[in-house]
């Protein structure tokens, strides 16, 4: 592996010097330094570092704001917060901003080295999730159709990956939270919902609300079953589903701008059920 290039963001020249010495002694190359938000993007663009160390308390824009700006400029930027402050609030904020790591000053070279290695290592757990999640959700959907309606579902080979689709009638959105956050989208027509409701309740649906409630509950079961299956594969996923939000009643475009959603559909006795699933990368390592 070639020498790892690091950029330092810190308002204090003294801190930059110490950090620079620590990094160089550990075998890294310090390719750029910025003292705040003003020269942040320009320095980053010029020196193209592998990772950035970021102070939190700086005059003007703080390390969180600088990190947000940098991640907007380059969503792949690897940022490690380096600060004497580290408590529950700053950790929570750091997680949400999406930085890759967080280490407290004064820094021990060995600890920093471990964090850098982790941050730069490929996120294999996320890759596993991405590679397996659609299949797991398909299995959960097929299982749920069989358990709840005693019929079977087959899946289309075609898989879309832009995550954008037009609703057939009812769209259920279920947020997923855990080591990685994501979204489950399920979509079906009112006709499908009506027939499914009739099968499950063993009587015709009384009204549209019953069909909508069925769709929400069905998606909730699919999401719950799938997340449990993924958590069994690796308990560090720690995935949990949020209550459903259900959209219906007009032609609706469904878009997930911030994540890559894979879509497919199941052919069932009740019609097509669209399934979309996507997760957001947030490789956060804390020491």
């Amino acid at each position, binding site marked *: 592996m070639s020498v790892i290039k690091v950029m330092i963001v810190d308002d204090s020249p003294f801190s930059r010097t110490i950090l620079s010495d620590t990094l160089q002694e550990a075998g890294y190359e310090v390719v750029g330094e910025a003292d705040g938000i003003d020269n942040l993007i320009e320095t980053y663009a010029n020196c193209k570092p592998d990772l950035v160390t970021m102070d939190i308390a700086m005059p003007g824009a703080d390390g969180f704001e600088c990190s947000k700006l940098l991640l907007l400029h380059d969503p792949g930027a690897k940022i490690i917060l380096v600060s004497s402050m580290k408590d529950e609030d700053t950790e929570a904020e750091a997680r949400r901003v999406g930085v890759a790591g967080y280490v407290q000053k004064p820094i021990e070279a060995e600890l920093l080295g471990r964090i850098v290695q982790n941050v730069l290592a490929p996120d294999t757990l996320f890759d596993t999730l991405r590679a397996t999640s659609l299949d797991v959700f398909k299995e959960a959907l097929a299982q749920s159709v069989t358990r709840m309606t005693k019929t079977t579902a087959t899946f289309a080979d075609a898989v879309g990956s832009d995550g954008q689709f037009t609703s057939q009638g009812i769209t259920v959105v279920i947020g997923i939270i855990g080591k990685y956050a994501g979204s489950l989208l399920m979509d079906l027509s009112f006709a499908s919902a009506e027939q499914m409701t009739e099968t499950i309740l063993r009587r015709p649906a009384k009204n549209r609300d019953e069909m909508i409630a069925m769709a929400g509950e069905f998606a909730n079961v699919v999401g719950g079953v799938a997340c449990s299956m993924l958590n069994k594969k690796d308990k560090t996923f720690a995935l949990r589903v949020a209550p459903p*939000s259900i959209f219906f009643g007009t032609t609706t475009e*469904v878009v997930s701008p911030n994540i890559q959603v894979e879509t497919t559909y199941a052919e069932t006795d009740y019609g097509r059920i669209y399934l979309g699933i996507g997760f957001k990368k947030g490789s956060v390592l804390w020491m």
Partner: protein
Amino acid sequence: MDVNSVNPILASFANILPQIGFQTIEKKGLSLSGSALTNKGIMINISMVGPLKGAILIGMEMDAAKQFASRMMMGMDVVDFDSLAQSALSEMANMVCANACTNFTEVGIVGLDISPPTLLIGQGGSVMLSAPKVIVVNFLIDGIPVDMYIGLT
């Protein structure tokens, strides 16, 4: 949900919007609705899990959404509500909700987490949330009408 506990969310709105180029944030109304809502044009859904569960939605009319996106993109013309505009609004909702989680920790509600945003484009569509009561807050953001729906239990 206690109406007072919407304050961390409102504070987040007031905190984030000036950071992305908006100057005046006027709260025009606050009301309580049932779990059924109407989509005026676009709605951004963000789910929440933790001590509070449910969803926070931000909604606007299509013209308002284009104006809002234009303002976020330094006044760039937004003729179509294209992927860039969609991404800008979703990012705004994401920032507001993430910041709200941080604000909640300050009042002792710790461990909230949010899902990525999903954007629903369809004027006149209906929305059914899991929370039986939804708090609706109407804002004028630099003259652009924006609604926030808080359905948490």
